[in-house]
């Protein structure tokens, strides 16, 4: 009677979970295997300045989505400032303003940047007007001489621009270009000069300012490029070699003259750009970039959550998998562990340290913790104060181990999380009670059992395929639930019971 209900429930759960899964996998083409991950870059601009106790206005260029990059989740952090953003022609600009400010001010811009693979042809833009560069008299003659020179030495516009960049980078012994450069020899100023000379030659050009997204960096230098207009589109040029084309890692921030940040009503302006990167599943960036069409179902997908919430769920969704393994180990195998799901928590703690170090670290900490616990036992402390004392000691030990590991150059020991610490304390307390009540043999047996269960749970939970499947197809948890429910009615022998009752078998022979 009860069992039919049970099977029906398990069947319903399985059918529901599998059909959702198949729909997503076959109809919506969700990837079944974890694809190559891509990087998600976080760019940050930090602006600091001293305000002069008067109205303050700060304008800053911010990156915008382009053919190669998608910029999402912009965040502007500024206490008390009004903020407007605007897009003018090719640039996006943020304007912070405040009626009155005094002392050190800090403003932040943060954005998430993803690489985009587009197959669409580049956008065509209308031909820009070439403005008269208006060189003053002696410079105009020098500039014209330069134009003459580069025209003579080039076949088309592309090589013309390359030649000019080469010239700008090697002005030695060439009077005209040296005079034009004067003391303004920074890369940005060279590019502005190139734009003006090209304007004189009738070639529309503009400077590009951006950053290289290569490694994570606390202090990123701006890199300035040059683009010239030809064949209805903009063609980039390397500022050093003059070669055309732009590397994939280059994120354009803004184009044209003008500096990154302009400040009115303050002094001592400093701007720092930094980049950091996170690994991201390909599916995630596909959803964000809108490559996967969004039917109603996808609106409720975990992929629509903010990124840091997703990270939480990536871990959380693994807990049922670990619990399922514990069900098998306890009810089918009969492994003795501390607490029911403590091994799952230990396995989660291993995520931070990796398996081997996790095992070493955990055993070491629990071992030393036990010694201290037994010492405290001599002092006849009451239960709760004693637990608190053990917790305190564990925190201290954790700090000590981390310090030692750091000195020895072992970084793995350093990851300290709140949850694992509490787990360790509870393990020590439980283990010591079992130790006293049932003897060291039983305590060690359960300790080893817990670690073995935790290791197995970790190994399964750490599979990228498993992580990918439960996160992309959380409905598979329904199937898991069905399996757990079915195992809940398993009334056969446990593996360890075969050994426990082995004396019967000898008698039967």
């Amino acid at each position, binding site marked *: 009677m009860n069992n039919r209900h049970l099977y029906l429930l398990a069947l319903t759960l399985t059918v529901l979970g599998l059909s959702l899964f198949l729909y997503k996998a076959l109809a919506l083409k969700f990837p079944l295997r974890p694809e190559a991950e891509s990087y998600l870059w976080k760019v940050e601009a930090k602006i600091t300045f001293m305000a002069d106790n008067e109205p303050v206005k700060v304008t800053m260029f911010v990156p915008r989505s382009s053919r190669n990059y998608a910029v999402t989740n912009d965040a502007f952090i500024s206490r008390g400032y009004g903020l407007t953003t605007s897009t003018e022609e090719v640039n996006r600009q943020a304007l912070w303003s405040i009626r009155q400010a005094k002392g050190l001010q800090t403003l932040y811009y943060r954005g998430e940047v993803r690489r985009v693979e587009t197959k669409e042809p580049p956008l065509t833009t209308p031909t820009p007007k070439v403005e008269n560069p208006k060189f003053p008299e002696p410079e105009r003659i020098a500039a014209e001489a330069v134009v003459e020179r580069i025209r003579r030495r080039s076949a088309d516009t592309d090589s013309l621009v390359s030649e000019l960049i080469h010239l700008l980078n090697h002005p030695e012994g060439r009077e005209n270009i040296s005079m034009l450069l004067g003391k303004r020899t920074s890369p940005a100023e060279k590019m502005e000069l190139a734009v003006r000379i090209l304007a004189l030659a009738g070639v529309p050009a503009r400077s590009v300012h951006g950053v290289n997204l290569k490694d994570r960096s606390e202090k990123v230098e701006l890199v300035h490029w040059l683009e010239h207009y030809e064949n209805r589109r903009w063609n980039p040029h390397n500022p050093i070699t003059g070669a055309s084309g732009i590397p994939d890692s280059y994120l354009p921030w803004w184009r044209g003259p003008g500096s990154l940040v302009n400040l009115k009503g303050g002094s001592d302006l400093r701007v720092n750009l930094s980049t950091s990167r996170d690994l991201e599943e390909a599916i995630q960036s596909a959803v964000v970039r809108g490559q996967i069409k969004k039917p109603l179902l996808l609106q409720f997908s975990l992929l629509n959550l903010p990124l840091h919430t997703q990270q939480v769920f990536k871990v959380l969704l693994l807990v049922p998998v670990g619990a399922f393994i514990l069900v098998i180990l306890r009810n089918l195998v009969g492994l003795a562990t501390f607490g029911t799901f403590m091994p799952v928590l230990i396995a989660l703690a291993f995520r931070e340290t990796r398996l081997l170090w996790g095992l070493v670290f955990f055993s070491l900490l629990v071992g030393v913790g036990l010694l201290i616990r037994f010492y405290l036992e001599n002092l006849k402390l009451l*239960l709760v104060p004693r637990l608190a004392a053990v917790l305190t000691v564990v925190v201290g030990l954790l700090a000590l181990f981390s310090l030692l590991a750091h000195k020895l150059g072992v970084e793995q020991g350093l990851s300290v999380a709140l949850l694992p610490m509490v787990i360790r304390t509870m393990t020590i307390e439980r283990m010591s009670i079992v130790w006293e009540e049932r003897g060291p043999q039983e305590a060690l047996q359960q300790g080893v059992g817990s670690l073995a269960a935790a290791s197995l749970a970790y190994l399964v939970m750490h599979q990228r395929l498993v992580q990918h499947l439960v996160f992309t197809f959380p409905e598979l948890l329904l199937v898991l639930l069905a399996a757990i429910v079915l195992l809940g009615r398993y009334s056969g*022998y446990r593996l360890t*019971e075969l050994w426990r*009752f082995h*004396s019967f*078998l000898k008698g039967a022979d």
Partner: protein
Amino acid sequence: MWTMARQLKQLGIMGINRRNADFTLTCNPRRFYPLVDDKLRTKQLALEAGIPVPELYLVVEKEFQVRRLAHQLQPYESFVIKPARGSGGDGILVIAGRVGANYRTSAGAILPQAEIDHHVFQILSGLYSLSGQTDQALIERRVDFDPCFAEICYQGVPDIRVIVFKGLPVMAMLRLPTRMSGGKANLHQGAVGVGLDLAAGVTLGGVWRQERLHEHPDTGHSVRGVALPHWDAMLRLAARCAELTHLGYLGVDMVLDREQGPLLLELNARPGLAIQIANRAGLLPRLELIEQHHRELTGVEARVAFAQRYFGA
């Protein structure tokens, strides 16, 4: 592996999953668990029903009462301290006598009053309780066990466990403390389990740490063929406990006192399975037989008679 499992199944050996799924979960409504998990309530229940129990001397409920403990214990030469919600014999301290101002445990250790107080504190703070909640400490009379056990018992007090299903005794076992178990009659801790012929109350072979044995590991005397006095009374007592607690599947722990006869020690809603090894018999055939016939049997006498008739060795 599968053949092993099949053999065990043929013998009717019950595994822990089977016990949980088909017996404790289905026959023992959760709401009645407190009756057996709290030894104080069990005791009160038994007294109301006229079932004899070891005399209760004191109950320590709160920490401040521990200060008066030394004074309150003065009239008693020997006693037992146990947690009301303890499990598996954990936290039980047996005091056999006094040495000056100190106490002597059944294992022969000498404890000062401070040690006793600390033990009571530990009990109160929930160290031994099933779910770690705060607890009470019971101090009761130390049972003076029946002389029939003198040769097969090392320290401590032997007790008798009877499994009762739907009010019928199913299987019984005598548990003998050893040096290893520290005077405790708990198989986990190293006590010897000896199977009992349910019909006559005579001991069969024993089991110690999963292995069969015939002599007590400490005294060397044979554990076989010992006839327990008051056997019928014990079975009746066990059968009555089922009615008392409304639990369908129950372990009844009793002691045989030299003067008072069988006394109820405690009840267990999840009795262990080692009793099968001690009796060299599986529980399942007996449980199935009871399942078929228990409705026809009314009254304790009829049930005990049925058990004695069908479940004898």
